[in-house]
């Protein structure tokens, strides 16, 4: 559906993109401005504060009470593992929904979507009490453990991602699998060797979405994690700022900006996987 465009068309597209980038960056510039404002106000009246300072960035790396660096590592670890397992588990489930016909399939698909719509307000209390009680029996699956936090995220990630993945699998032709199975491959083997490589773009999409979603979650993590060395960045930052009356917006803004870098890195690394339409083999018949 794409062809080479006329210079005017190309120019128009770039203009449009730059407009949106302007929209996207606009508040970010103000966050940056807050991060170099020594007065620690969130909203300076001028974009470049009179006497700017890099101290808030220095503080990011040197603050002993608030180990931002460690928090970023924790965030990357939790988000990375969550995203990886989301991709694996959702792909498995989506494969079943896409390739097998069984009783309750349609109901299952619809309920997957519906359960995600339940307002989550009370889920916090429920999950907290659940993990607290699990922790009484199995300490490494209790509160204040990254592994239990990851499990909570995995639970929340299954519904939409299975749907997204299933929609994509549906568009992959059966013919390749059929010929593989004639050659003696099991379902599982054809899933691993044929479906997964073909579905690379959607795997990348889900990895990225889940990574970012987990990385920025504050509510669940703040309820489950209780010791400073286990905090994720989002939790650490929110506690650091303790409410609207905080006086530490400068460091908070600086940390928010630095904290965005891992996400950009992941995106840069994975975006080649995102677009692979040209190399796809089969076409749905």
């Amino acid at each position, binding site marked *: 559906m794409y062809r080479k465009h006329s210079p005017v068309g190309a120019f128009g597209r770039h203009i449009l993109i730059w407009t949106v980038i302007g929209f996207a960056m606009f508040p970010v510039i103000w966050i940056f401005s807050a991060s170099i404002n020594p007065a620690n106000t969130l909203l300076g009246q001028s974009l470049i504060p009179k006497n700017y300072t890099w101290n808030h960035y220095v503080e990011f790396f040197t603050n002993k009470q608030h180990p931002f660096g460690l928090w970023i590592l924790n965030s990357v670890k939790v988000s990375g593992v969550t995203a990886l397992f989301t991709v694996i588990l959702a792909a*498995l*489930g989506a494969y079943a*929904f896409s390739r097998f016909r069984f009783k309750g399939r349609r109901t299952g698909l619809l309920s997957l979507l519906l359960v995600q719509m339940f*307002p989550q307000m009370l889920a916090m209390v429920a999950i907290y009490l659940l993990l607290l009680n699990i922790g009484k029996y199995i300490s490494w699956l209790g509160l204040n453990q990254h592994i239990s936090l990851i*499990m909570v995220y995995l639970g929340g990630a299954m519904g939409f991602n299975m749907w*997204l993945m299933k929609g994509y699998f549906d568009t992959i032709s059966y013919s390749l699998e059929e010929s593989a199975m004639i050659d003696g491959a099991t379902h599982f083997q054809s899933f691993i060797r044929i479906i997964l490589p073909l579905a690379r773009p959607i795997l*990348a999409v889900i990895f990225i979405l889940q990574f970012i979603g987990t990385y920025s979650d504050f509510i669940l993590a703040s309820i489950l994690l209780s010791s400073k060395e286990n905090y994720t960045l989002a939790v650490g930052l*929110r506690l650091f700022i303790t409410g*609207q009356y905080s006086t530490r917006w400068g460091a908070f*803004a600086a940390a928010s900006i630095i904290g965005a870098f891992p996400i950009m890195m992941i995106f840069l690394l994975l975006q080649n996987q995102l677009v692979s339409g040209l190399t796809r083999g089969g076409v749905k018949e």
Partner: protein
Amino acid sequence: MEKPLFSISLKIIFLGILDALAIWSIITIIFDGYYWVGGILSLGVIIINYIFLSERAYPFRYMVPGLIFLVIMVIYPIFYTIYVSFTNYGTGHILNKEQAIEQFENQVYFPKDSVSYTFQAFKNDSGEIKIILFSPEEEAYLCENKKIIVKVDLSDPRFIDQDKDGIIDQFDNYKKLDKIQIIQSLNELQNLRFKKDEYIIKLANLTEFIVCNKKYQFDPSLDRLLDLENGKIYHDIEGYFISEDGERLTPGFRVKIGFKNFTKLIRSPQISGPFLRVFGWTFLWAFLSVITTFALGLTLAIILNDPYMKLRKIYRTLLIIPYSIPGFISCLIWCGLFNTEVGIINRILNNLFQVIIPWLQHPIWAKVAVVVVNLWLGFPYMMIITLGALQSIPFELGEAAAIDGASRWQQFKSITFPLLLVSLAPLLIGSFAFNFNNFNVIYLVTQGRPAIPGAGTPAGATDILISYTYRLAFEGARGNQWGLASAVSLIIFIIIAVISAIGFHYTRALEEVSKNV
């Protein structure tokens, strides 16, 4: 059918770990008296074993790993919410009845002739503690075991005062504890209760034991609490112990109250009054949120999927920035940008067009503002999923159309877009539901404001159902009413489920699902 050894052993190890964990927990849980939990857990384990060992359940093997997490972390909280919606859980009713009774039974009162005793504590090598108490009349009492004290004569040679300072240093094998050791043993000491006459003696502070008496006694057979000091009787009435003359004891406790939360919601004029207005805006808000973010995300995805587009990698990366900044800070920043008096947006508008817009003060402009903020927060998500979904659209189709001379727009309209919708429609409905409940954005940007004049209906112009009803649940009566909030969650869930079902009906998604079944 011959199966590779590897996959069988993998399966067995997986099942083994799972069953081991499960059986061990089930046994412990049942020993601890949670029969229900144990039962449900056993059922789950049996189902999982069946799925993995029976060929008939083969497809479910692929789903189980993911669904386990879904059931524990999503389904279980839903049931918990349903349970809570039938209780009075909330301020004043946080503890369960046993905990409340335990607190009452631990309370003491001091009789008029109450005296305090100074004490010395002693410990033997095996860590047992004994106490010598000194009454105000200098009489000495020794606790022989944990319950009883007896009067003793300290001149007995059994009590040794090595340095002759008048303080006993040792008796039998027990050695005196100094202040530091007393503090280290404080937890043990604070639980000691001695009987003397009809009173009890317990530790009051670091230097004294005090005579006191139990204040309340619970009578399980009559389900009532008796005040031992003045004989008052308190009955359990809806989660409080209340006396005949209306005196209410603190704390209350959690009890089941049937459908009361629901009837309260339905009957309350505070809810029924503004309901239609709030519901209308909630619907519009969710709809606008999906449409705006999807339109922008789709446009960007299509342009940035174009292999002829230069710099597209950099563009894509720059465009996900809004998604990578904590929403908490960006919402507050947006608030400031929209500020009517000093915000940059109004300053620009004023310089260019000489207009000042009362962004967060005017009902309609405030709505525009939250939609814009949500567009900013949400378009990168839509861009990424659309980029992904675009990869599944076969290129050959487009090329064939191009040969037929179809214009790009026609191609998009008749081929790309419908195909995209097939895989994205469920997610758009999901996104609708998410925004329907998007408490955070509303709360951080406008807090539901601006307020609307009118008595008794504190729903602001940008309040959506969830923010408004939670406000009623948490700003009503005496603070947090979790039971009411749960009932609200349930009702809102039903509303969304119905809307989504209708949505499915009208999109092609459901057809697609049924076609594949």
